[in-house]
């Protein structure tokens, strides 16, 4: 461990968790969120030299992405699903992608987080550790509101567990104010799969619309297990239900604009999948 005037640099997870449990520290991955309004008195726990947080590997079920892997590393890894690569391709610009991490994106808990949207739609799970143990939770359960998570003050996000299957057939669109270095004004990700004419996977996530990323599992359930013909007959009803469910907040762009984009993309997603 190296102690700096503004924090601690550690090279293994055990030590990191120990410091995390003993001191009031702010985890620091790439710093691209933290440094925008840096606090003078903050004490940081630097995560970028912890090997357990820097690897990407897979097991039977999941691609496991270390929380402190940079976007560039994730993008360049062959295990990374294309939908995640697409989101990285439109995220910030190369300099930020070389520093920023998926873990930071998740823990910053912004509804505008581009990779968090992908983890949402993909049913990813988060592996969270503390000196006294670990827990694994679905990403949706991690958030309590804008900028708020269930992360305890002695915990670190260690890995993101992305399901290996069912991500091939996807729809992704990010709408920013410009082509690069643009925070999402609306982002949409959808997954769709069928087996023998039956819809097996139908998921949609909406970013930058409300205080957290939105997913409506009850509405998705209307389609799962249905035939394409059944889905077609339910289409108008589904659209009407989403139209009610999505209530954008006004931000840098109007709620009306956000709503129009969400509904247009949702319909296009259905169209593209023959519904």
């Amino acid at each position, binding site marked *: 461990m190296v102690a700096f005037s503004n924090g601690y640099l550690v090279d293994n997870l055990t030590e990191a968790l120990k410091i995390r449990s003993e001191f009031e520290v702010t985890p620091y991955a790439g710093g691209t969120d933290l440094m925008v309004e840096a606090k003078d008195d903050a004490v940081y726990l630097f995560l970028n030299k912890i090997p357990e947080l820097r690897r990407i590997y897979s097991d039977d079920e999941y691609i496991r992405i270390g929380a402190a892997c940079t976007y560039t590393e994730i993008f360049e890894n062959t295990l990374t699903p294309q939908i995640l690569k697409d989101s990285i391709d439109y995220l910030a610009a190369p300099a930020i992608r070389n520093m920023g991490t998926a873990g930071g994106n998740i823990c910053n808990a912004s509804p505008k987080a581009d990779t968090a949207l992908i983890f949402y739609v993909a049913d990813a799970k988060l592996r969270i550790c503390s000196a006294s143990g670990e827990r694994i939770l679905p990403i949706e359960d991690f958030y309590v509101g804008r900028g708020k998570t269930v992360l305890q003050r002695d915990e670190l996000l260690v890995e993101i567990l992305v399901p290996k299957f069912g991500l091939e057939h996807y729809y992704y669109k990010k709408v920013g104010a410009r082509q690069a*270095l643009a925070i999402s004004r609306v982002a949409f990700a959808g997954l769709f799969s069928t087996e023998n004419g039956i819809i097996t996977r139908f998921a949609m996530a909406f970013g930058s619309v409300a205080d957290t990323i939105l997913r409506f599992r009850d509405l998705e359930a209307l389609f799962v297990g249905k035939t394409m013909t059944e889905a077609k007959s339910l289409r108008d009803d589904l659209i009407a239900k989403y139209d009610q469910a999505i209530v954008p907040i006004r931000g840098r762009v*109007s709620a009306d604009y956000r709503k129009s984009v969400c509904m*247009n993309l949702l319909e296009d997603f259905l169209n593209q999948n023959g519904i």
Partner: protein
Amino acid sequence: MQSISKSIPKRDHFPKISGRAKYVDDLQIEGLLHGKILRSSVACAEINEILIPDLPNGYFVIDKNDVPGVNSVHVVDDDTPVFSDGTVNYVGEAILMVAGRDLKVVNQILKQIKVIYHEKQPVLDMMKSDTIFYQYGYTKGDWESAFRDADKIIEEDFQTGYQEHVYMEVQGMIGSYENGKAIIRGTMQCPYYVHTAVKRAMGFESDKVQVIQEEMGGAFGGKEDYPSILGCQVAVAAYKTGKPVKVILDRNEDITCSPKRHPAKMHYRAAIKNGEVTGIDADVVYDCGAFTTLSPVVLQRGLICATGVYDFKNLRVRGKAVKTNTVPNGAFRGFGGPQTFFSIEMFMDHLAKEIGLDSVRLKERMVVKQGDDSATSGKYHFHVPFPAMIEKLDQISGFRKKRETFRHQTGRYRSGIGISLVYHGCGFTGSGERDLIKGVVKVVKNTDDTVELLTAGTDMGQGLKTVFAKIASDTLGIPLEQVIVQNPDTDRVPNSGPTAASRSLMVVGKLLQRAAEKLKQDWKPGEYQEVVEKYVHPDFMIPWDLSKFQGDPYPDYSWSANAVEVKVDTLTATTEIVGAWGVYDVGTPIDMAIIIGQMQGGFLQGIGYGSMELLGVNEKGVIRNNSFSDYIIPTSMDVPNLVTEVVENTYDNGPFGGKGAGELPAVGGAPAFVEAMENALGVNLHHTPFSQEDAMKVLEALKK
């Protein structure tokens, strides 16, 4: 291409790109104090009281009572105070400065100061202003008959928004006071403007004020007037404290209180008879903000440009610049031109539709040519290369064919292509060069035969040092390395005028060329020699009369033809810029890479103005988006296919045939972009910036 156009590395290239260049904020000065300005948080109020905490030793508060001369900053007029005179007129107006050793302590003190305001209702809408700062108007031909006899009269309203400069280096100055002399150094376009202003505020003689320009990281017009204000403030602070005082704005502060492009509202009428536009009538309002700064001249240029590049026989143009309780607006690349050029270009597009012509056809038919009278009854004395430029534009963009193909579209994506034809009048507006500036340059030959060019011209990244050196080196026939150009210091350089108005190369460069020619004739190796050269007004010009608003406002014009192609995604209302093509006549490019750099950057800036650069002021007069995450400018990714070409049309009164270049490219981007959007969406549009949200509104309306 002439040999002088062959590009060389810019003089500031390696220092800046390597990080070695020292900007004002990098300077280490013994005993330096940091100053921070307390700014008004309300838009319109009288100050009842200012509660200041006890100050620690070595910390100072500087306000209007500390101004030794006049508490006013000379720009064109003198209404801007150095520090608030007891009223505040916009959010961000300087009330006082706190200065001391430690910036953190300064900031703490600043937070503890309480200002008790007696608030008044601010005027935020320029149309509701009852204070007209400036007003001009002119007519040509018989505009009344044209409208009386018209088959049809078309009327439309146009609106353009703010634009923030977004120079990379924020505003910053250091003032010091030594032996009865005020020394000001910092980032600035016009050292002698600062000099004049500081002299007056301090009540000093000329030789007791010295102004030094430090390395500059961009300006775009934003450092034409504001440095005079900041210069006076640091001068007063140094005088009071007896120590050098540095003030560097932070970005949010800079966006809040530095000048921007004037928002404008414009009402246009056209008389149509037998399928021709027989008269035009423009009524223009520019929003000055709370003080006048450069507004009279900005408005003048705006009015001169109001009928565009077309030969209207009958016209009337009127305009006023009004006060609102918002940040004072000032110079910005194009200087009043982009607003009216946007309107006339869009109006021409709409008139063409009325007449049943493609807009380019109408524009081509009406475009001015050499010998035509200008709108202000001056003359286009020189060749206007539009026909060749439009042909070239078609070659590189294929706009004629695309117009046809984009006519009737369905489906998710809609394409459009827009064309604009614009000019920028080169040099100071009206008789400014002759009556106000009277530029002087000095060329010194040292005993080692190096030659130093002494002018007040500043290099803000636009390449002035490089082109000045090239002009001297080519004229004298000596290697470039033998030519010295340093940042100006008013103790050393004569007043060659401000670095503004696309005048430096054409006017000051010409003076340098003439001085160099004289030196060459009289060259005495190993001897110290000096040549001083003074401005001579071109005799072909029809004298400018401001009271009548008539005559030649500029000796010559730079021209551009622009095309922008868009592809609109109807689901998201986002727009991809498929291509942007610009063809420019800036006379002889004195350095091709510099010119292409200027054209590309300016064009992109113009497209930003037309599309995404939205600055919002809320109902309390506060700029809502004073940060880079919220004020969006285009990046190179937004217009990856940006093609710029020049046609060479030499201007004999400029050095090696060069004329104004810097501002021209920022003028034509917005109308070309917005016409492309019209073309794609199939509706008439009337404002900048035309944003994603605006496009969505149109798309939603079309659905219904």
